[in-house]
């Protein structure tokens, strides 16, 4: 594993290995001293072209608990906002001696470009690129599902599970990464969205697509993942008539949550629009694992940094 750009680059064994390492990281985080010396002396740069406090903090915590130094380089107030290009920024980071770059960008493919354009030699971690992928989010979702639905076996996948992902699939990098990862791990995925929020061409994805949430929930899924409705990305507008109509058709209401099987969990990548895509009561209910997802994020990102940095960069693992 040279970079962590896209779930599409992983095979099942690699994905399981990262999840197993994340379990190990979780175990270390219950100790009296949570800081591990693993990456002491390395520098991880958080390069955030898009505001995302929670993802940046999660990566920062992960790097620091492995004793790496962290430099935050955010668009606001930096040379990036003064028109410096990704290329110039990459050359700068290379010159400053970063050991890994965690990049978040509104542009699909930004992480891939950074990894492959030849501007910088270091491992690149994709912290979300446009509507393309958010691979560490998918890993933390899989990690959380595994703990609840397939506990105990560090080599387990998600075989036989049924996951329903609901909402703005069109603009969602979380949905894309999750479809790839959950199916890679053996789960069955159903996407539910209003037709205008399903990408043309998604019929080629390895999942089922439905337009009716109640029908999807009636199949008794093991996990329901609600996506944030990204109103800020609704270029052109008119994807659905009103928030009210969306909420009635696609919101996870208390009644809908009550129809789920007892063991089913409810997830959300955050930040939530309470009362819009998910009812506040559901988000706070016992079956909600939304807060736990945040904790899982740190473990998974520790694992990813470990796999990329605690290795001989001259050769791949295994």
């Amino acid at each position: 594993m040279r970079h962590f750009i896209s779930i599409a680059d992983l095979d099942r064994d690699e994905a399981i290995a990262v999840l197993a390492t994340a379990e190990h990281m979780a175990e270390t985080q219950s100790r009296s001293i949570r800081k591990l010396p693993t990456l002491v002396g390395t520098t991880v740069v958080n390069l955030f072209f898009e505001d995302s406090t929670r993802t940046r903090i999660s990566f920062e915590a992960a790097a620091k608990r492995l004793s790496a130094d962290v430099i935050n380089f955010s668009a606001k107030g930096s040379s990036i906002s003064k028109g410096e290009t990704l290329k110039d920024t990459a050359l700068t980071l290379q010159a400053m001696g970063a050991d890994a770059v965690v990049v978040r960008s509104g542009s699909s493919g930004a992480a891939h470009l950074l990894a492959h354009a030849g501007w910088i030699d270091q491992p690149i971690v994709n912290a979300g690129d446009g509507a393309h992928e958010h691979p560490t989010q998918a890993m933390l979702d899989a990690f959380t599902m595994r703990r609840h639905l397939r506990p105990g076996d560090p080599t387990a996948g998600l075989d036989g599970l049924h996951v329903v992902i609901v909402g703005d699939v069109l603009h969602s990098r979380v949905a894309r990464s999750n479809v790839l990862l959950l199916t890679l791990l053996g789960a069955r995925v159903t996407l539910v969205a209003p037709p205008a929020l399903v990408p043309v061409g998604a019929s080629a994805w390895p999942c089922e697509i439905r337009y009716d949430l109640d029908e999807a929930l009636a199949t008794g899924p093991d996990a329901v993942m609600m996506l944030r409705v990204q109103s800020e990305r609704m270029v052109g507008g008119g994807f659905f008539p009103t928030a009210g109509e969306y909420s009635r058709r696609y919101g996870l209401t208390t009644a809908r949550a009550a129809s789920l099987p007892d063991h089913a969990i409810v997830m959300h990548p955050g930040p939530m629009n309470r009362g819009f895509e998910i009812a506040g009561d559901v988000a706070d209910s016992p079956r909600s694992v939304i807060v736990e997802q945040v904790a899982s994020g740190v473990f998974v990102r520790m694992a990813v940094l470990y796999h990329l940095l605690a290795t001989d960069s001259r050769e791949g693992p295994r």
Partner: protein
Amino acid sequence: MLGAEEIRRALTRIAHEILESGHGADDLVLLGIPHRGVPLAERLAAQIARAEGDDRPLDQLAGSLDITMYRDDLRHNPTRAPSPTRIPREGIDGRTVVLVDDVLYSGRTIRAALDALGAIGRPAAVRLAVLVDRGHRQLPIRADHVGKNLPTSRSERVHVQLTETDGVDAVDIVRPGAEPGPGTEPAEGTA
């Protein structure tokens, strides 16, 4: 170099040494270092429990201590998959921890183990038991209990197999170029 019977005798001796040097089994915790230190710690714990007439479950006496995250050679090797750490429920604070490993070589593994231990708690004392000491220390570390001293050259490898992990109990020295058998783990890497 060592067969099953010699290994058994070595462990029996170490078990008695541990009991004689300490204050009995009550304060003891044996922590094996993955991978082959873990079954060795369990064997020692079983012998100690038998000798003391201690009927606690074995996992109260023995556990495992993964040191992967504390290694100083991570960036010189392919990614290592960490193993579980299992600490007896009562913890290690104020107790005597015996670290158990198969081969003592450079001492770097033990250095890492001491760091890992420090993150978990504050033992009253830490001792080290190894099946084989092959010399060539790079750090000021020595074992309190040694099954067998095996003089080796740096180019040789000590090849330990245990029933639990490899189906057989045996210790061999592998000369450079010779093909080691299955189950081989190079002791302590090459650092």
